[in-house]
């Protein structure tokens, strides 16, 4: 019950944070594509709860909640999305691609690429017997990408400590999983790599947490990799203002809202005797914190051109510099 309340608090934070970001996007303070996470919070919280701080998480173009759940500070994530120097990537990456090295968090905006990258993290961990695991989260859409297949096979033949989590939110942009993934459940692909078929209710934070735990334990024992399909639902459009009417019926979303993780967890908490006032207070506290955060964030500086050019490459010994006149044609 205490753990569930803790999960609820984290999911609520992600929900409110996500809504704040949507709002910032509308105000044009987030600049690139922004992909809302609403409804999928149990995946981020449940799966990340099972990770140690030095485990690696590779995320996607929809990364902000994964990042926070992995332990990146709200400050660093929010200001990265707002392009400020205090962001994880110094404001050079943005809302779809950033790296928080200290938190062992990486994400990127090319769908499917992170699966291949994950095998390298896993390989290094295995070879160094570091005891770490690498978790790689990707979408239902990414599961149709060639890298999914190559990475699963590579990780499997080498028994790498990688937990592949397919966050099936039912859509890849406007493409419903039912029409674009040829098998009934994405987890059915596991057998093609000699792995077990595992599907979890990705709206159930405790089930997600348990599955993640088991998977991570297997990986730490050298019995990885593991592929888990976490079934959830993307409540918002692919991005704020996408032409939703072209691909789904609004009634579907209304229905989905009944089963989304916050609604479900709250009910469970209340049924278990939790005081509604406590949950309301929790919400207020988070809202306050986020409001303060935004005030602070808005005052942070943007990176300069020097910041960008500084890190294109590392200067070579005895050679024309990578940085400097050669780096700048203008």
């Amino acid at each position, binding site marked *: 019950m205490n753990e569930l309340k803790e999960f609820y608090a984290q999911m609520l934070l992600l929900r409110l944070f996500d809504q704040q970001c949507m709002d910032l996007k509308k105000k*044009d303070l987030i*600049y*690139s*594509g922004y992909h809302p996470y609403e409804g999928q919070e149990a995946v981020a919280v449940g799966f990340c709860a099972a990770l140690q701080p030095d485990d690696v998480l590779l995320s996607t173009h929809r990364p902000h909640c994964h990042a926070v759940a992995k332990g990146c500070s709200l400050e660093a994530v929010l200001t990265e999305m707002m*392009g400020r120097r205090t962001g994880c*990537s110094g*404001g*050079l*990456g*943005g*809302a*779809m*691609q950033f790296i928080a090295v200290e938190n062992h968090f990486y994400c*990127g*905006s*090319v*769908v*499917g690429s992170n699966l291949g990258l994950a095998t390298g993290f896993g390989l290094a961990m295995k070879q160094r017997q570091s005891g770490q695991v690498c978790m790689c989260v990707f979408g239902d*859409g*990414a599961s*149709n*990408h*060639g890298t999914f297949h190559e990475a699963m096979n590579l990780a499997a033949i080498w028994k790498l400590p990688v937990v592949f989590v397919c966050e099936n939110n039912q859509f*890849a*942009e*406007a*493409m419903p999983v039912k029409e*674009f*993934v040829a098998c009934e459940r994405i987890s059915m692909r596991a057998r093609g790599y000699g792995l077990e078929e595992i599907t979890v209710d990705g709206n159930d934070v405790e089930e997600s947490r348990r599955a993640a735990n088991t998977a991570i334990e297997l990986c730490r024992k050298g019995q990885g990799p593991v592929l888990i399909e976490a079934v959830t639902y993307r409540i918002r459009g692919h991005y704020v203002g*996408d*032409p939703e009417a*072209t*691909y789904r019926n609004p009634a579907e979303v209304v229905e989905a809202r009944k089963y989304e993780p916050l609604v479900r967890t709250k009910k469970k908490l209340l049924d278990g005797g939790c005081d509604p006032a406590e949950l309301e207070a929790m919400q207020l506290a988070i809202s306050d914190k986020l409001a303060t955060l935004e005030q602070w964030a808005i005052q942070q500086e*943007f*990176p300069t*051109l020097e*910041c*960008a*050019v500084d890190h*294109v490459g590392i200067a070579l010994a005895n050679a024309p510099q990578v940085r400097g006149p*050669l*780096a*700048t*044609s*203008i």
Partner: protein
Amino acid sequence: MPTVTFGEAIRQAYEEEMTRDKDVFLIGEDVGRWGSLYRSSRGLLEKFGTDQLKDTPISEAALAGCGVGAAAMGMRPIVEIMYIDFISIAMDQIVNHAAKWHQLSNGRVKLPIVFKTQGGAGRRNSSQHSQSLENWFVNIPGLITVMPSTPYDVKGLLKSAIRDDNPVMFIEHKSLYFDKGEVPAEEYLIPLGLADVKRSGEDLTIIATSWMVTFALKAAALLQQEGISCEVIDPRTLWPLDQQTLITSVQKTGLCMVVTEAPAEGGWSGEASAVVHEHCFGALKKPVRRHCGMRTGIPYGPSLEFDCIPSVNSIAAAARDLLGKPAAH
């Protein structure tokens, strides 16, 4: 003449060609239901159905391969890769197959396929969604590479690309889709391989590509007020390159600047510079100047990316410098 956006001009080209020839089809991620990312195929699914508008999974390699196979069977696919950055995933199909099969079949297989994508910066999409990779294709025998800069050009060139029997790389610019321009109501084609003199001038030839054409034209207008007359040339097709139009211009002006958004090193600007220099050696008063994007990943943020690529002001400044005129203040 009606004024339409760049995106609408593309839509018209699709509509006309799909009506004319049922073998023409568009295949890519969300080209049907969504009508493409920048809506350049909106409404066409309703009109042409799923045979001609094919939404695909996120499988760039397979869908490029699918296009090549269908083209070998005589269909006329337009394969859309949503961002040129992702064409990195489909290079095998384009370079090792589409570009090779005509020769490999001793001239018997035709590959009437268009690979259509969009590149460049200006929409704050950060380094994995803003690259200018066009020169990769220019170096591949068997490929034609087109980069239009106006609504008029994109329509006429796209129609020609669809009708051409060679594989064509058709590279749009994400910052051009909402630009407006005149497009005739009557049907027209623009031949592949012809450059266009976008503005005539006497003092300096500016060769610019894609979005940079619009910057160069604004810079030319600015410079005109200072008494500097620039000729702005848009090659439109990077290969085969209309060398003659470039040469004629530089032979007149004696000065040349190449403006691309891609970094200079290893980019198409080197090709253009070399061609001009090879053919106008006697006429050139100074070396061809390359004024190009910085050698950096395009950074995120509200405006930083604009500091990494040529701007109207930087083009004007480079032009003044080339002409030995004092900087404007």
